[in-house]
Every structure is written in structure tokens, then in C-alpha cells.
């Protein structure tokens, strides 16, 4: 039986060198909550495992140049404990919904992006918040918007040799708030049937700017520009009335078992997160 090489780099530079060497023959293990199961069942069978949790420089959460940046190996627990991340209600609400406490101790937002399942809670919140993802490789970096990151079911723009270095969330002012909610088959430790997140900027009860993201309504998490465009400039009450029965064209549902249900509740869920975000603003925000 073939041996698998294991590497535990201590610096980003070391990690990038390894990824450059093994390219698509390498698998990155971050929190490992998804990939380790696949490795154990040999659903993936790499030449090299690069375990990145031992890289201290990727662990930090900091604010600079108008962004809160979450390092590539920061865990959900780190996010929940961070006052900087606490500014983004939608992010915190989504992270609280992920798995169980033990999963949140090891799982990471960057890993969630890399795995790219369409129901991933945190990705939907990050997408609504307009987060940017910094991809590093040997000799360079590039920045990708979350909404452009997911290209197909469980597939991202990440190329062989690349690593998610950090996630940058643009800092907003007091006129902007966010929210996340999901519907699942049970109330904890479950995958979303539908999830929704908004970032809302409102003034005088009128929607000035809005970003809406949905999870589990197609092969990837998606932004909903059709609704976003329709809502800007309208009163919040009008927005709520408009979204409630909406079945946005961005939905790409195929399984007849759940299509009808998801279409029936997606507008309800968007309405609820919109209302939650607006209530936070109306309540004085943070």
C-alpha cells in the first residue's frame, strides 16, 4: 500500500513551498472536520498532506485599512471570541449554527470556503458581508470576492499551490447591519435546508443598499442581485412585502424531493433576516 507523506509547516512560506512542490497531489488539512473523514474513507488519496494549523501567523484576527481580517487557520471558536468579528451580527449568527461546540473548536471559516458545500453557513454570511478572500501562493497573492469564489458544487477558484491566507470583511458604519438565519430539519447540528444572510444599509426606513446571499439553493452559495436591485430605494415595509413570496431566479434547485419546500420558504427566510438586520439598525445598532 502507498505511503502518504505528512507535513506540518510552521510558517506560511514553508507551507507555500510544499504546496508548490506537490501541487494537485497535495491536500491541505486545516481544521480537518471535513477532509479527515474523506481521507479516512479514502475518498481522497493524496501524495502529501499539508497540515496548516501549526502556522501561528495565519491564526490572527485583526483590523486594518478598513477591513477585519480573519487568518486562514483561525477557528470558529476564535471568531466567536473576537470583539472585531462581533461587529458583524450575521457572521456571528452563522458561526453559532455550525456543527457543535467540539466542531467549532477545530473547524475554520477558511476551511469552510475551501470545502465549498452549498449549505455552508459561514460562507453565506461572508458572501452577504462582501468579504474578500486572499489566496496566497509561492511568489504572489490574489484577492477574490466571496461571491466569485465558488464555481461549482464543492469547487472553488483555489488553484493547485494556493492557500486561503485570510478573509477580509469590509468594516461598515452604524447605518449598516447584517443577519443570518437557516432552516434545518432540527434545531442543532444539522445542515441547512435553506439559509439566508443580508447586509443592509438603511436610512429613514428606506433601503439604501442591500446584499442578499442564499445557501443550499443550488450547487453553490449565491448572491441574489435580482432582489437586491429591486429593493434599493424602497421602504423596509415594501421590501418585506416584496421578498416574502419571492422565488428568485438565482435558485438552481433540481431535486424534486425538496424543490417545492425550498421555494416556499426562501422568501420567508430572506424576509426574516432582512427584518432582523433592520431591527438591529432601528435599535441603534452597535
Amino acid at each position, binding site marked *: 500500500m502507498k505511503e502518504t507523506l505528512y507535513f506540518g509547516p510552521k510558517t506560511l512560506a514553508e507551507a507555500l513551498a510544499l504546496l508548490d512542490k506537490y501541487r494537485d497531489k497535495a491536500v491541505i488539512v486545516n481544521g480537518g472536520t471535513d477532509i479527515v473523514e474523506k481521507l479516512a474513507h479514502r475518498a481522497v488519496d493524496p501524495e502529501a498532506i499539508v497540515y496548516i494549523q501549526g502556522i501561528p501567523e495565519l491564526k490572527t484576527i485583526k483590523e486594518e485599512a478598513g477591513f477585519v481580517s480573519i487568518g486562514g487557520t483561525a477557528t470558529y471558536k476564535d471568531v466567536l471570541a473576537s470583539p472585531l468579528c462581533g461587529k458583524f451580527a450575521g457572521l456571528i449568527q452563522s458561526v453559532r449554527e455550525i456543527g457543535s461546540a467540539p466542531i467549532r473548536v477545530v473547524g475554520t471559516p477558511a476551511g469552510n470556503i475551501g470545502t465549498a458545500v452549498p449549505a455552508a453557513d459561514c460562507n453565506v454570511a461572508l458572501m452577504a458581508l462582501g468579504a474578500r478572500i486572499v489566496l496566497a501562493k509561492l511568489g504572489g497573492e490574489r484577492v477574490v470576492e466571496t461571491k466569485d469564489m465558488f464555481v461549482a458544487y464543492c469547487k472553488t477558484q483555489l488553484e493547485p499551490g494556493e492557500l486561503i491566507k485570510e478573509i477580509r470583511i469590509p468594516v461598515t458604519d452604524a447605518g449598516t447591519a447584517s443577519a443570518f438565519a437557516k432552516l434545518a*430539519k432540527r434545531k442543532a447540528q444539522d445542515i441547512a435546508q435553506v439559509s439566508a444572510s443580508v447586509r443592509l444599509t438603511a436610512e429613514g426606513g428606506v433601503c439604501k443598499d442591500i446584499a442578499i446571499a442564499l445557501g443550499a439553493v443550488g450547487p453553490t452559495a449565491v448572491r441574489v442581485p435580482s432582489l437586491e436591485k429591486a429593493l434599493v430605494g424602497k421602504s423596509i415595509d415594501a421590501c418585506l412585502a416584496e421578498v416574502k413570496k419571492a422565488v428568485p431566479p438565482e435558485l438552481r434547485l433540481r431535486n424534486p424531493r425538496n424543490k417545492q419546500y425550498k421555494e416556499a420558504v426562501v422568501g420567508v427566510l430572506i424576509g426574516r433576516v432582512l427584518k432582523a438586520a433592520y431591527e438591529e439598525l432601528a435599535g441603534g445598532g452597535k
Partner: protein
Amino acid sequence: MKKGLRIVGRSVARAEALAKATGRARYTSDFKRGDMLVAKALWAKYPHALIKSIDTSAAEQLAGVAAVMTAKDLPGRNGYGIMVPDKPVIADGKTRYEGDPVALVAAVTEEIATKALELIKVEYEVLTAYDDPREAMKDDAVLIHPNHPAADKGNLLTVVKLDRGDVEKAFREADIVIENYYETPMVEHCYLEPDICIAEPDDLTGGLHLICAQQAVYATKRCLAPVFNLPHHKVRVSSPIVGGGFGGKEDSSLDVAAVAGVLALKTKKTVCFELTREEVFRTTGKRHATYIKHRMAATKEGKITAVDVETVLNKGAYTSMGGLREPAHAVTMRTAAYAAGVYAVASAKARSYSVFTNTPYSCAFRGFGVPQAIFAVECQIDELARRLNMDPIELRRKNILRDGDHTIYGQVMKESRGLGLEECMDKVRDSIGWDKPLAQSAGPVKRGRGFAVFMYGTGIPLLFEGASCFAVLNNDATLNVNIASTEMGQGVMTVMAQMAAEALGLNYEDVLVSFSDTGRAPDSGPTVGSRSTVMVGNAVLDACRQLKDRLLAFAAKPFKADPRDLAIEGGKIFVVGKPETAESLAALIAKAYASQVPLAATGVWYPPQPSFRAEDGQGEPMHAYAFGAHAIEISVDTETGVITVDRSVFACDVGKAINPAAVEGQMEGGAAQGIGWGVMEEQVMENGVMQNAAFHNYMIPTIKDLPDLESIIVEHPNELGPFGSKGIGEPPIIPAAPAIRNAVWDALGIKMNAIPLTARTVLAEIQKNGKA
């Protein structure tokens, strides 16, 4: 009831609690050793197919493989089962569900065994696979068991018939008839510990020792000795503590033990066979899915006069807990017997059809078919109350079985065996505030309240009733009690020690209960059917009485007292009323042994001989019943269909709670499992292939899905039960699902007759009814 109990009736700490809480308790998988072979099964690629050829040559040549076996390589009978040996150890020429092994491998590592499976080549001819018994029982359906003794009935294994009174006349004369069709899903037990067996050939005896997590060590020995071609006395079966069974480990243990055992005999080495969680889902037994057509006749005053019930059960691929000879078909028989639930109904007709399909075999699962039957009845009576505009609890009160009443199968109800249902109903009614309307809010959330009741006969009469045990008094005045029952978290070690200590005047800590080993104890019967506290408890009391009688008779001379005036308590023996006469019990025991007084005993107990006629389903099968009433409050989000269970108030008549904390544990666990059955659990099958074989898509409730589970213990003693007790292991699962369904009707004004009531099905009904 006995007065002045010292130990019985107290919530003493569980005997095994410390070891479990500290992680030191050893389960079967903790007995694995490095030098064991690892077994793997090649499961059927197609759930229903003919096997045209198998080529194992490449697998046999793989380094590290100790044995590859197909049906032609078995040492004995290629068939086993609790009632009928129709489940093959290895599929021979045909597969009937995706859990049939086609070949077995034993290798030095799991990795090599898995690799070997990939090298086995099998050619199949695929047949139509049936998920639904209503399809499988059609005349033109492909026969799943062409050579089965029941094959003349097509895929129909058995029909249980019950007839009492003049049903046609009752329906003709009825003021009101309620007719509905109900469906309940196939569900998995979801015990925490996956099935496992370590099989050790015993070179000293030429026999085999099976260390295997299970519920019935003697049944395993009886069922598998012919498979190994060994006499029964050379098959030793033992079970360390078990991580949950719920009825499943009466059968699935046979599956893993058969595989490990034949490989151990073949290789002459110790072999371990442990299922993965996915294998547990795909291959082990399940709760029977049922399809119930229920008609109920009543007068306008609310007296139920007749029921006419037709139940189709999904038997799955093999007979399991069922027989060819009606009514030795525990689950099917109960769906007919409980067709009128807890109510005194003069006329009844019930037909229950158990039908083979290509799903996993249906087996025992907490309640033996009673939850399915009661689900239908408790929905029916709720509708009757609505139609008559009567309070559902008062309507039930008018109809419940009372002292001297006959069940629809002819059993006479006796107050002396404990009939505490009405007290349960009243306590729940008061506690939940039934007469106060629920507060409703203006938003999309609607609230509702539902009620359901049950009765459940203690034990499994007509199958393997009766119990035996050994008890030995030691020189230091401690006692060993050896029983063959399983400790699977229900607390059998604890309650047996409590009862023995009470009976013999010992301290609780001075009794040690050894369990589930055919090498150490006589047959106590299987640990199923809510039977151990009563059946095995009585056997333990019998042994303790013998020991006490012998001790007191021996003590009469030195104490110069009549044995009837002597008492034992807290390790002392004394003349009643004269504490100054007290002497050390240990000293007396030493003297007794020296004087050739035997202080080891076999305890035995059998319930009254049961009866149940196959022709008309009439008889007296049960000796006592547990009862209960459950009220549940729910919220329904009418925009999403999501149900939240807000409150659960549950009362059970257990006769006597030997250990109240253990009884509450059973009640809370049953309520949680019942809520799961009602709102989320479901094994989804498509053409014989399970679609949700993992805990991320097979849902069971988490603590966030449950309210605070309120439990009320009611005690109407059973004259035949030890200290008045009745069985309470299974029945708490029964009433939650119908109570939730009735609460949904209350909240939404919508009748739903198929569980689970998932958000998807609830929202679809809301939209259909225009109530969004």
C-alpha cells in the same frame, strides 16, 4: 404494598455509573487485541438479485488475508433467526436486501480486509426490489423467498386474525364511524454502540466464545449453535455492558456473531467483526413501517362499540422476531391485539399482514408494534372527540378498560395487577393545565396541545417467558447474583441489587450482579419486552427467599427463637424487637457453611401460562400492564412548517418504581425517542437502497429539539410483580407521536395521518388547506 422498604423505591446510584462517567467501563470494542483477525463482509451490491458467479481467487492470494468465505464454505446450517432460520450467514444464490453478505474476509488488518473485498468479483442478475409491502403483496410480485415455507402465500409471511363480537352489526348500528388511513415510518434504533462481536475459538473445549454486544445471550447460543455445527454447551456467549439496544441487538448481534464465529472456526484464530455506522444503518433490523386502515364505531354519547382494523407491516427481507405459526409473531400479533388501544370495545375485527420486502428486516424495536397500533387508535379517538364536540380526556375516561373488562383479545383486566391509567390522565391533565386555553400570538406561529394514552403488557409471553438466576452468599455476608440479562443502560444491575438487598436484609453495596454470560448464569430470558424487572426480579427474589429461609432455619437453634421471629438487616441478624440479640451475619454464614447448609441457590419465576388462539386472536396472553398518559404542547411556524415541541408532561403507572431515577430516565428517553419518531426520524429507501445512511441525513433529536421532559410516576401495584412492579422499559416511547399529531390538529385545524411530521410535509398541508 410493602411498608418500610429500605432500599427498594430509592434512587440509589447506578452500580456502573462511576465507571461509565470516568470512561473506564469496558464495552465489547474495548476487548479488541492486536493479534486478532479483522473481518469484513462484501455486502450485496443489488438488494434483490440472483448471484450468477463469485470469483474470490484474487482476494485469497492477497498477502495478509487469512480466509475468504462464500456460502459453500460454511461449517453448519446457512441460516439463522430468532424464530425461523431464514436469514443466511452468507447469501447463497440470491440476495434479498443490501445487508446480505455475499462473501466474508478475515485478514490481519482492516486495510487488507477492505482491499480483499475489492478483489472479489460477483456477477448478478438484478430483480425488482420492493420497498413497500403493499407492492410486494400484489399477485404478480417477484417472490423474495421462493423456497420459504410461507412461499405459497407469495411475499406474505403471516396474517394475524382477531375476531370478537358482531362487528358488522356494531357498525350498522353506530351513530358515528371514524375511518382513516395511517402511515408510520421505518426507523433505525440509533443505539450509540455499533454492533460488534469478537469470536474466540476455545482450544480447551473445542468450542467457541462469542463476546458480543447484545440483548439475549441464550437466544444467540440457541440460534447460532447449528450455524457453527457445535453442540449448545460448547458455545459460550457473553456480553460486556452494551451501549444501547432498543430491541435491535436481539437480532443484529446474531448477524455479527455469525460472521465472526464462522471465520474464527475457519481460521482457528480470534476474529473481530465490527460494523461501521453506515453498515448499522444499511444492514441491521428496523422498526416495522405500518400502513393502518382504522375504522371505529361509536354511539353519539361517545361509547366506542367496535373497531375494524387492517394493518400492513413491512417485514423487510427476513422473519426476525416473528414466526410462521401465528401468533408467535410478536410485532404483528401486537398490532392486532392493541387495535383498540386502552379501550373497552365489545366488538372487534383486526387483520395484520406481515409482508416480505427488500428493505432491512424489521425486528423488535421498543414497543413491539404497540406504538404503531396506538398511534392509529389515539388519532382516531381524538377525531371522535372533535366530531362529538367532547373533551378528549373525558371521552377517553368513558371508554378506558376497567377492573373486570375484557380487551378485544379477551384478556380480563384486574385491579389487583394495577390499573393506574385514570390517575395518569388526571395527573397530566392537572399538571399541564388542560382546561386553560393556550396563549396564542399574532405572528405566524400557532400553538396547539395534544393528548394520548397507552397500555403495554409486561413481557413477551408466547415466545420465551420465564427467568432463572444463581445467587451465592459469601462468607463476608456479601451476595453474588448471576443473571443472563444484559446491562444496556437501563439499570438492571442496580435494580436487581436493590431487590436482592431488600429481600435478604443486606446493604445495597453488598450485592454484586454479574450479567449476560451463558458461562456464568442460567437463562434469564432475553432482555427485551420490558420484562427484566418483573420476570428476572421475581427469580432473584425466589433465590433470596431460599437463602434467607435456610439461614433463618439454621439460626433458630443458636437464637433459641422461631425462624419467623428472626430478621436480617444491615449485615446483622436479630430477634425482632430485641436489638440486643443482634449478631454478625458473616459469623452466622461461616457457621452455616461449616454445618453443611448450602448457601447457593437457583431462583426461578414464570408468569401465568399465556394463551392466544390463532383462529380468532382470543386468549389471556398478558399478566399485567403498564399505563401512561402524555400531553404535549407544540408551536407550528405556519410560514416554514417547523414544529417545536414546547412542553411534554408524561405520567406512567409502573406498579412500583424500584429505582425512581431509573424510571424517570426511561420516561425521558422514551419521550425523546417518541418525539423523534413523530417529527423527524425516517429511513428513506429507494429500490432497496437506503438514501440516508448517516447521522447527518438521518435525523434524531438533539437536546435543542426537546423541551424539559416532565415525568410523573404513578404506582398501582401488580400483585405478581416484585414489590408491585410492572415493566417500563419500552412503553414510554408510545404516546408522544400521536400526542404531537393531535396537537398539530389543535394548532392548525389540519388533520395529518402520516408521521414523521416534518416541516416539509406540514408546510405542504398548510398550503393545500390554504391556511398559510
